[in-house]
């Protein structure tokens, strides 16, 4: 072979491959079939061209990415290239930011849920209180009416053997009303405490910290506290 295939200094081109010639073997000695060699060379040439093209386009791609990195660095392009140490960091920042935003959303959801739950409990409690008030009014009115009736009866009838029995009956009625009131109050208390226990249990299960939301102009790069205590709420 006359061409230095392995010479790194003068790397072979496809064109050189096309011009390469082989000396003919002397008559009477065994040699390759000339046509077969030419066919083979044609195949090698085609492959060679393909490889060179691939190499060029890869090189261009490398150059293009390199330019994008430099451009991305220069103008802070949020869609800059994802290569190089600096870009790796920016990529990581973006991933962490996305995770943080997701976490914020979870916490906000939990906070909204907690808010709704407390609001509902508050409403329910108001309803129960009103209902209790109505019952209490009714019981009081009934008791007053009974007392009036008893008084009128007592006045009209004067002392009679029935009076004592009626008094006893009134006492019994009063005792009943008292008992009823106590029972109702106990039920009411049990119900309210049940609600509070429910909230506490939910509270315990939900160990994540929930923010009260921004309130007031209180501030900082490092963590801060909001003001929502005694002088700052509603």
């Amino acid at each position: 072979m006359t061409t230095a295939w392995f010479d790194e200094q003068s790397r072979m081109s496809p064109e050189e491959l096309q011009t390469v010639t082989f000396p003919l073997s002397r008559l009477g000695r065994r040699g390759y079939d000339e046509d077969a060699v030419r066919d083979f060379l044609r195949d090698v040439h085609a492959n060679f061209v393909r490889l060179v093209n691939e190499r060029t386009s890869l090189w261009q791609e490398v150059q293009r990415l390199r330019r994008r990195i430099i451009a991305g660095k220069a103008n802070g392009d949020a869609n800059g290239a994802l290569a190089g140490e600096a870009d790796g960091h920016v990529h990581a920042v973006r991933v962490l930011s996305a995770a943080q935003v997701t976490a914020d959303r979870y916490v906000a959801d939990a906070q909204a849920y907690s808010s709704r739950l407390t609001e509902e409990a508050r409403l329910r409690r108001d309803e129960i209180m009103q209902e209790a008030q109505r019952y209490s009014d009714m019981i009081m009115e009934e008791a007053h009416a009974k007392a009036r009736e008893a008084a009128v009866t007592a006045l009209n009838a004067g002392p009679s053997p029935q009076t004592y029995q009626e008094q006893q009956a009134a006492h019994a009625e009063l005792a009943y009303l008292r008992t009823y009131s106590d029972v109702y109050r106990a039920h009411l208390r049990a119900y309210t405490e049940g609600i509070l226990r429910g909230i506490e249990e939910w509270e315990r299960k939900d160990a994540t910290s929930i923010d009260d939301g921004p309130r007031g102009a209180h501030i900082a790069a490092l963590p801060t506290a909001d003001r929502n205590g005694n002088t700052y709420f509603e």
Partner: protein
Amino acid sequence: MDVARLRKNFAQVAEHGDEVPLFFYSDLFLKHPEVRDMFPISMEAQRGHLVDALVKIVANVDSAADLTVFLQGLGRDHRKFGAVAEHYEAVGASLLATLEYFSGPDWTADLRSDWAAAYDVIGAVMRAAAQEDEALRPAWWRGTVVSHERRSFDVSVLHVQPEPQLDYLAGQSVAIESPSRPRLWRYYSMANAPRPDSPLEFHIRLIDGGAVSMALTSSTAAGTELRLGPPVGVLTLGQPVPERDILLVAGSTGLAPLKAITDQLTALPQPPKVHLFFGARKADGLYDLDSLEKLAAEHSWLTVVPTVSSDPRFSGETGSLPDVVARHGDWSGHEAYLAGPTQMVQDTADRLVAAGVATDQIHIEDFGWSEP
């Protein structure tokens, strides 16, 4: 330092909105993962705080005196979060990285050195104030809950023993962190005057969706260890105690600072006459009336007027707190202290001014950074 250039650059960066603080904190946490633990899980409010602080700093960067007071407060305040000198460097580096990233091709070496110089000053003022403060008091106090009393559906009264002793002025507040809500601090006023070896009283109102108030009202039993920040606030009697008669107007748990002021007055040999209006929506919202009426029975100079706004069955004063106060006489010769829901405080202040009370005689909590 070119202030105009700095402001222009900041305005340009700020156009990127929430992306800016988001980038800042992610950059900080990636470079210094150990710092992440100093912040709550949700960073939403925190990002708002950062931007607010930066806006305030950039707006006041050429009025050193105002800015210094703000930064000193900020520096002292950050002690309870565990901020130390190294954190300031880390924050500075991430701040520069963030500004550079969002400035794009407009980022120059001059801008970089301007920002670096500005941050050096900011950090130095904050650190110096923190260091000075370190010599005076701890970063935070351990507060052991002595008792927890649920007074109504949504108000609890807590007694908390601080360790070491916590000196404050009646009417001031401290930030409280509950162990079940780490890294979330909320301000609450002490409801009693300072006395050595005596627990602090707090009135906690459950706020719908409020993480800390929820934790404090429902899952804080005796023995719970809270963290308390340093006392802050200007809703105090001042020195010397004013000689004028005093009007106290408290809406709901706004009672706490005003009860502390009343408590402080009980120690005076000759206290001024005090009218304390205590208002709530419903009668059961007057969660501390028993204790106030006991005080009034013991001290002839104290008059307590319970007021309910939407409960016609209530036997005492009914109507909105500002109305009730206004129809109760001439307050022009009084020093007025107001605390409670923002709207109620504002309305009461307006009514008092309209009725001839001088504005410098009306005291409300200032949520800025001035400390007495």
